[in-house]
């Protein structure tokens, strides 16, 4: 017997599948017309992206249909992969070995376990308080003081970004919203769909109308036209998804707007880090998308804000 939320989830997945089928067909057509020998990089990249989307939708849908445990495992693995990419680009060294080992094998699993058992009081301070104080202690006792502040800051940032922020996506499941019991998985779907459609729509608007670069130093492909078109249309997408949320259409639109803004600026911050490190992508895990963080960056910045806004105004806890 299907729950109500599973039916809504299937509706959403059905809609996304339809969009992807259209995108795949359009991609095939464009390829046949403009890039029969696979030399047009824009079209090849587009098709790679669409293919990666299929994988993501299937993974995401599968995990969410499994409920809380599925979501915890999926985002826990995403955190792991993101942390692996992040730490690769840092200047950490021998002296940080134990600090890093505990970041990967203690802090990360404990954070997700705390989210799983819904211990809000601890999972909201585990990284910002306990890890923040304990990691530098571990590095300090190893005695290597070279670039100490930089290394300690890098480990803390890696944990905040890749573990703390990402874990706020499955943490949405712990909110208790009157009249919305048992349907919290749809909040995750809402957040992810709004963030990702904003990314896609900014890309599309930018390719169609993009003229004025918004931050040429950071991200040469981002344009004012792409940003405004993408942000507004993604806000509309979010408002149109109000039926799966506890929000009114207006509230859903407003929250989507905040999500989209945080996502956009999050993308800029993560680009700044990549520039600083001299790389174009965080990794190569997903063809056409770069690494995990390249796909997650906007979710990373919007998830905790979305979580706390909803928690403050809608949740009982």
């Amino acid at each position, binding site marked *: 017997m299907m729950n109500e939320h599973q039916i809504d989830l299937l509706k959403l997945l059905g809609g996304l599948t339809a969009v992807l089928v259209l995108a795949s067909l359009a991609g095939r057509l464009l390829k046949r017309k403009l890039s029969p020998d696979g030399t047009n990089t824009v079209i090849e990249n587009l098709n790679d992206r669409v293919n990666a989307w299929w994988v993501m939708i299937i993974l995401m849908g599968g995990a969410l249909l499994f409920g809380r445990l599925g979501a915890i495992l999926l985002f826990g693995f995403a955190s*792991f*992969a993101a*942390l*692996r*990419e992040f*730490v*690769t*680009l840092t*200047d*950490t*060294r*021998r002296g940080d*070995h*134990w600090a*890093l*080992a505990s970041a*990967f*094998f203690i802090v990360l699993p404990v954070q997700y376990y705390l989210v799983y058992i819904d211990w809000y009081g601890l999972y909201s301070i585990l990284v910002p308080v306990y890890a923040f104080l304990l990691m530098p202690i571990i590095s300090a006792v190893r005695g290597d003081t070279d670039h100490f502040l930089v290394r300690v800051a890098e480990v803390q940032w890696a944990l905040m970004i890749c573990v703390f922020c990402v874990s706020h996506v499955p943490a949405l499941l712990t909110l208790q919203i009157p009249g919305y019991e048992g349907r919290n998985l749809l909040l995750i779907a809402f957040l992810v769909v709004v963030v990702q459609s904003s990314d896609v729509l900014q890309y599309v608007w930018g390719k169609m109308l993009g003229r004025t670069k918004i931050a040429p130093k950071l991200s040469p492909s981002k344009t004012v036209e792409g940003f405004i078109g993408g942000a507004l249309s993604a806000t509309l997408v979010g408002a149109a998804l109000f039926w799966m949320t506890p929000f009114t259409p207006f509230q859903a639109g407003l929250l989507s707007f905040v999500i989209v803004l945080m996502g956009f600026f999050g993308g800029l911050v993560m680009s700044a880090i990549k520039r600083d*490190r*001299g*790389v*174009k992508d965080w*990794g*190569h*895990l997903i063809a056409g998308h770069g690494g995990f963080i390249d796909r997650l960056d906007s979710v990373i910045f919007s998830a905790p804000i979305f979580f706390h806004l909803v928690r403050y105004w809608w949740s009982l806890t």
Partner: protein
Amino acid sequence: MSFLARLAAGAITLFARFITAVRAVWDGIEPVPRQRIYFANHVSHGDFILLWAVLPPRLREQTRPVAGADYWLKSSIRRFIGRDVFNAVLIDRDRKTRADDPIKQMADALDGGASLIIFPEGTRNETDNPLLPFKSGIFHLAKQRPDIDLVPVWIANLNRVMPKGEFVPIPLICTVTFGAPLRVESDETKDVFVKRARDALLSTSETVEGNA
């Protein structure tokens, strides 16, 4: 390969991928089933596992690492991994005690159709220097079988995953870069060739992106 060895090979490569998300960069050659001698930098016992893991299955089956018998025969687990799982060509590194000539062992393996993975530094590099001086073995092997391509392979980042003396690996992304192949010239002297091979490996390392 026995079922148990296959299972172990699968588990070892899966673990290596989990920790390092290792990725191959085919910069100077294509991953085609041709007989080759891969020569790589050596920072840890995991080196040949990463190189082996990124080879397509058909190439993997015919590729044998060359490793020190002193290390890989020490315990029954190591013997199982070295001999049964990776089918290593085990050579005795000690000149005084050895019965077999390592160059002949390697040439025999090549004659049997295998590709080889060798580490011309001869030992693990635990210095800050990117690459130790090469031993002359690579020259003698190349002279013995001059028609086989020698392919420089740079394994990046593995030294940060597991520095010497640590036993918990840190997950970090590693790359394995394959450079342009070389062969020994008929009139080339030992010193000239060894330097050329070492330079080729160093220049392969420079194509790796980032701070690796």
